[in-house]
């Protein structure tokens, strides 16, 4: 199955990003293809490489970057949502790129399912 993933909230404040990460990882482990993970609304905060949580807590930004590196997952941050919230190219962690909302629509068209995680 080809999956598109939409993440609407940032790390830490809502569990949405955690759930999306765990779901995406499980889907990859089962052999499914991740068409794209798209970060919208406050979800753009998942791409902020400056995130520095306490060492005894998970770091979702790093976890997403690792997932992209190990499995070639495409991770796209919405440019309009990112500009509003002060996320630009210089803040992007490894594996993330900034692009337009069309990338979300395209993930919906190409994928067999689009699964949304948010608040």
């Amino acid at each position, binding site marked *: *199955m080809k*999956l598109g993933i939409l993440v*609407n909230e940032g790390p830490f404040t809502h*569990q*949405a990003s955690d*759930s999306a990460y*765990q*779901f995406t*990882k*499980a*889907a990859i*482990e*089962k052999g*499914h293809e991740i068409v794209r993970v798209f970060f919208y609304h406050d979800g753009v905060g998942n791409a902020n490489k400056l995130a520095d949580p306490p060492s005894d807590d998970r770091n979702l930004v790093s976890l997403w970057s690792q997932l992209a590196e190990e499995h070639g997952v495409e991770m796209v941050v919405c440019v309009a949502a990112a500009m509003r919230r002060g996320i630009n190219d210089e803040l992007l962690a490894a594996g993330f790129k900034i692009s337009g909302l069309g990338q979300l629509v395209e993930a919906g068209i190409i994928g067999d*399912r*689009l*699964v*949304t*995680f*948010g*608040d």
Partner: protein
Amino acid sequence: MALLHTVNKSPFERNVLSDCLRLAKDGSAVLLIEDGVYAALEGTSASDEIISRNGSIKFFALGPDIEARGLSEKPLIDGLTLVDYAGFVDLVEEYSSVQSWL
């Protein structure tokens, strides 16, 4: 063709489970995740929401979220099925589309 609905909010805090069940057809499935899993508890003021549709809708809850919230030893509503993240993926594959009630 039937939908998979996900609900991630506590039924004690928000009305979203009711909103979902108003629009969920018989034969569809509802997966409780995150704070949504509190709706899986038996014997609460919210239990009837699920019990009243039990049988016509398949109810699932995410086990890791149940465990995280200390609910493993509490009685859950009869007939509700626990799944892990891999089971969540299977449900997404099994149903025709996913509606996330945010």
